[in-house]
């Protein structure tokens, strides 16, 4: 009998440690499917973050380096400068990329570093148990914003795709999400386009995936998807923020 659905080769055959309903599993699969479809697994070097996806080096079948918190774009830069002919990507969450790694991210984009960043925005620090992230929404309750994020004292959520689209080095930036099948298909399309843009040598690419954290949001996976639609998408509108791929 013909097998019509299987694990992508680029995804290792090991159990993932993610919580039930977490978006990481979906996005891992999308990245792996793209590596398979483009036939680049053997030519790709990934960079894993600190945070929930820290063990990504056990999940992707390509070579992987584990970076310090926030430093993935710098580590990726070092790799890419040594192997400009290889495909280099980082996989980072919002605390990693948009707080401790803001400088590394902005300057990798500004340099037009020819790498791809998969950025998971679920508005919370997941690994450490649900603290306020730079992308936590106003009023959102977390362990370190127990009365809801007060923008007067705790600042405003950072819109990463919008910010990075102002850099001249960015070639392709799109914000996608994974709440519905059509959105998941669009997310995969964006990830594929980002990798293709890198392979064409056009510069910095980033796909921001608006995702969920049922465990730390204190919701069921279905409630999380609803909360994402009602609260996150209005603040983080989906769409292409930068496209210089035709240039």
């Amino acid at each position: 009998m013909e097998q019509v659905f299987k694990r992508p080769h680029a995804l290792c055959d090991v159990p993932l440690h993610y919580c039930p309903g977490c978006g990481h599993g979906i996005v891992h699969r999308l990245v792996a499917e793209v590596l398979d479809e483009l036939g680049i697994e053997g030519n790709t070097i990934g960079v894993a973050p600190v945070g929930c996806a820290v063990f990504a080096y056990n999940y992707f079948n390509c070579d992987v380096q584990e970076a310090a918190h926030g430093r993935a774009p710098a580590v990726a830069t070092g790799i890419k400068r040594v192997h400009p002919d290889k495909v280099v990507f980082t996989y980072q969450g919002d605390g990693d990329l948009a707080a401790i790694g803001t400088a590394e991210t902005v300057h990798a984009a500004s340099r037009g570093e020819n790498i791809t960043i998969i950025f998971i925005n679920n508005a919370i620090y997941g690994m450490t148990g649900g603290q306020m992230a730079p992308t936590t929404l106003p009023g959102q309750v977390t362990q370190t914003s127990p009365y809801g994020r007060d923008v007067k004292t705790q600042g405003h959520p950072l819109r990463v795709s919008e910010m990075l689209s102002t850099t001249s080095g960015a070639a392709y930036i799109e914000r996608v999400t994974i709440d519905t099948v059509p959105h998941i298909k669009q997310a995969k399309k964006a990830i594929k386009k980002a990798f293709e843009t890198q392979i064409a040598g056009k510069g910095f690419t980033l796909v921001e995936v608006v995702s969920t954290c049922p465990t730390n949001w204190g919701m069921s996976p279905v409630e999380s998807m609803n909360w994402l639609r009602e609260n996150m998408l209005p603040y983080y509108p989906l769409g292409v923020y930068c496209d210089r791929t035709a240039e």
Partner: protein
Amino acid sequence: MADKVLVKGNEAVAEAAIQAGCRYFFGYPITPQTEISAYMAKRMPKIGGVFLQAESEVSAANMVYGASGAGARVMTSSSSPGISLKAEALSYMAGADLPCVIVNIMRAGPGLGGIQASQSDYFQATKGHGHGDYRVIVLAPSSVQEIVDMTADAFDMADIYRMPVMILGDGMLGQMMEPVTFEKKESTRVVPEKTWATTGTQMKREHNVINSLYIEPNHLEKLVLERYEKYATIEATEKKYEAYKTDDAEFILTAYGSVARICKNAVDALREEGIKVGLIRPITLWPFPAESYTEHTKNAKSILTVEMSMGQMVEDVKLAVNGKLPVHFFGRTGGNIPYPNEVIAEVKKLIGGDK
């Protein structure tokens, strides 16, 4: 015989690194080591190498991590406050068994301190920087020629032992111009192939992972213990020092780096007065050549450690001597350099006191 050229210490370490096969340099400007970056910026594009000025020392050092993990010979340099920032990546490189060469051209601290020469990062270099159980090899040149001569070896050691190697100079050595020759020294070292590097699997092997995270305590303990076996080998085989006029010496000066040269002047001047003084100059600060303080102090009654700091190496000297001889300290700090006459006066004061 290669021609002699007049170069600054900073430029010498850059050129020596290039000659040792380093083609990747990630830097960030800070006085008094910026000439290293400037030299690399000029040379690297002409030889197919990469010079990249990062947005911070933190980032530069993490670029080194990435490039090293990708299998390259890679270097970065900084001065004291910048080394504090690079400490993060040093710990991760030690934990991921990654080779690199890092140069610290020390300036005075703490904080911004000053921009003049200092040796007040001895603790940081030999015992500190990042978190965790780890070591880096620390080399302390005392002349521009010695910088040139030890740089290739620094890269070889980094690759052989898969760990960071630090070249620890100071602002005086970095800024000083001296005539040197760039001659390829014969080396018996065998540098292994980097089969562990992330170069792409080509679908022909299991994926390589560069990582310092080990959640299971027994697993992490095992890895740290293995690393300490490697450190024990280094301690047994890589210690280096210079003993100067120590055979009959009744009084031993000890100093490293540029201060050791000042102390040599003091030794010669004191010997002209008939005072039998010698000098022990550690060349490797880790591993510290502790045995030299037994071997070369047979006739000595006491030891004076001279440093451009408030006394940091003096602790290692005391451990090496282990109470058998009195160990004294003289130092200048804040960016001041001890003069030979100050060292001479200190020796005479101590000899008077010892008699």
